[in-house]
């Protein structure tokens, strides 16, 4: 089903073994692909809002990290770990903050049980979710994606062995495996949590990449490339990988939604990054103890976490539908 608005660009360009204009890795840098602005304008309004929300969360997290790491707290965002009712040695007075305050101009979303600014903690908490999600996606795409694409293209015994191993890991209930792995380590840093969740993300990406690579390896343009004697290596990097990549990217969105929930659950259990670093999960866990006094403090992190997951699902689903339409029209 050829869509007239989408030029069928594959055969002519990809067949030429001397073509140098095509990058091997990214879907983004291709001149004939839609620009970011075009993609954005194609989105339904709900997906647009979701994208904007995700940009805000990511931007906020990076801003908060810069504030602490580079500008030493000089940027306009409150210290997430400052207990605003504490005695201040410099001024010789107690801070004017109160625990469990309602929203005000000073504290946009109020304060938590020990008078820390909830808004600042939320923005900082986004950093943990961001890093964990990005590491998981990077591990998944680079390791899982590459392995899956490779065995889907090469087939044979390598495929059988690798996929059997993947099946075994996926046979383990994911959360139990994660908890068991996390329990081994006494110090749970952001690096450690990201690495463990990243490693556990690999199998599912391998499966997705293999399925997609199998489908693409059977397409006419790959057969054509084989027929003119292109080296298998070149076919893999020029034909197969660039076509599997967009599929993996849209899968990464949906997988990120799952990863954010898992990290949230882990934080909620107190088994993720350690305090005082705020995460959405540990904010929910701390605030739920005072739910009778102040439900708003539970509500804000819950809302932010749920909205982020919802947005990732929306955008991921949309990209998946879109790439499905695109590959159907090829």
């Amino acid at each position, binding site marked *: 089903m050829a869509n007239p608005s989408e030029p069928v660009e594959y055969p002519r360009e990809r067949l030429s073994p001397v073509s140098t204009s095509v990058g091997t890795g990214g879907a983004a840098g291709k001149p004939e692909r839609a620009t970011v602005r075009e993609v954005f304008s194609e989105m339904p309004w709900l997906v647009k809002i979701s994208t904007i929300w995700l940009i805000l969360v990511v931007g906020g997290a990076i801003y908060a990290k810069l504030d602490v790491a580079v500008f030493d707290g000089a940027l306009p965002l409150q210290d997430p770990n400052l207990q605003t009712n504490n005695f201040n040695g410099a001024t010789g007075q107690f801070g004017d903050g109160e625990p469990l305050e309602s929203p005000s101009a000073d504290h946009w979303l109020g304060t938590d049980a020990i008078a820390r600014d909830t808004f600042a903690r939320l923005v900082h908490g986004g950093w943990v979710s961001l890093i964990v999600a990005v590491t998981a996606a990077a591990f998944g795409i680079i390791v899982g994606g590459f392995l899956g694409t490779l065995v889907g293209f090469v087939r044979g015994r390598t495929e059988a062995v690798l996929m*059997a191993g993947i*099946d*075994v890991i996926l*046979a*383990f*209930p*994911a*959360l*139990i*495996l994660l*908890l*068991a792995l*996390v*329990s*081994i*380590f*006494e110090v749970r840093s952001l690096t450690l949590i990201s690495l463990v969740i990243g490693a556990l993300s690999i199998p599912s990406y391998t499966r997705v990449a293999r399925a997609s690579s199998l489908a693409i390896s059977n397409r006419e343009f790959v057969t054509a490339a084989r027929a003119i004697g292109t080296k298998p290596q070149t076919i893999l990097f020029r034909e197969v990988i660039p076509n599997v990549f967009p599929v993996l990217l849209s899968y990464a969105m949906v997988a990120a*939604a799952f990863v954010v*929930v898992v990290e*949230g*659950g882990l934080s*909620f*259990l*107190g*088994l993720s990054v350690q305090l005082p670093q705020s995460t959405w999960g540990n904010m*929910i866990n701390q605030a*739920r103890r005072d*739910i*009778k006094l102040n*439900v708003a403090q*539970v509500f804000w992190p*819950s809302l932010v*976490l*749920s909205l982020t*997951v*919802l947005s990732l*699902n*929306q955008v991921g689903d949309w990209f998946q539908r879109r790439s499905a339409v695109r590959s159907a029209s090829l």
Partner: protein
Amino acid sequence: MGRVLIARFGRLLATLFAVTFLSFMLTSLLPGDPAVAVLGQDGIQNEELLQQVREDLGLNRPIPTRYLDWLGNALTLDLGESYINKGQDVWSDVIVARFPVTAQLAVMAVGLAVILAVPIGIIGAYREGRWQDSTTSAAVQVALSVPNFITGIFLIWLFSVQLGWLPASNWNRLGNGVVDNLKTSILPAAALASTQMAIFSRLVRADMIATLKEDYILSARAKGLSDSYILVRHALRPSSLSLMTIVGLNFGALLGGTVVIETLFAIPGLGFRLINAIYQRDILVIQGITVFVAVVYVVINTVVDLLYAVVDPRIRRS
């Protein structure tokens, strides 16, 4: 069929082997001396106890022999004793005592999810593209995106804090009376069910939309059968197969997924015990629960696969 069974059984054995090995490796992966980790704080001073634990765990023997020994013990339901809570046998005092609670929760959650998901899915498919479909789809999207511990907290807030109808903790065992048990189990089950419901109803809707386009639906309409009769008798039936599969798979996953909800509601199930064991670094309890849940999960998945083949003749033949 026989060949399929044998192949499936072989795969089950291989997977069980790998899963038990992974669980076993937990004690070996521990950084430093596992005996110290197993004993925790008070063990470090007690050299005699340390030696005993090293002997118990067989730390001075190579890993393969240790694994086979451990597996042999595990097969006779000897998973060792908790070193933190002295004299607590991992199999009889932890798993046997607590698994029924977790299983009850998972069954209730899946049951509740199916009861809600089927009508929602049917409405979405029957009124595809109209407001009934878009409202239910939006609600399902939200249910899918709100993690179950958040659902749980706000259920507690509404029904325990605001309305005061149901307790937020103090689990009542089923033996204490069904009504008393229901009072403490309905909120956690509902929290677990919300995500499951979303997954199931999306499946039912998508499946039924495809089914409703089939010719036999048209001929049933032409015969003058009522819409509701067609929906339930003709359209739902083929969809129930894939629903059954995903229910089975999710049931296995729920056994692990109850961890957070059990902790939130302080339910004395396996998950809550696992978390406590992790806090206390009670290695043998962690190992025991991990291997038990993993084995149950693998077995359930295999059974679901086989059931699917038994129920659907098309798969049986191929």
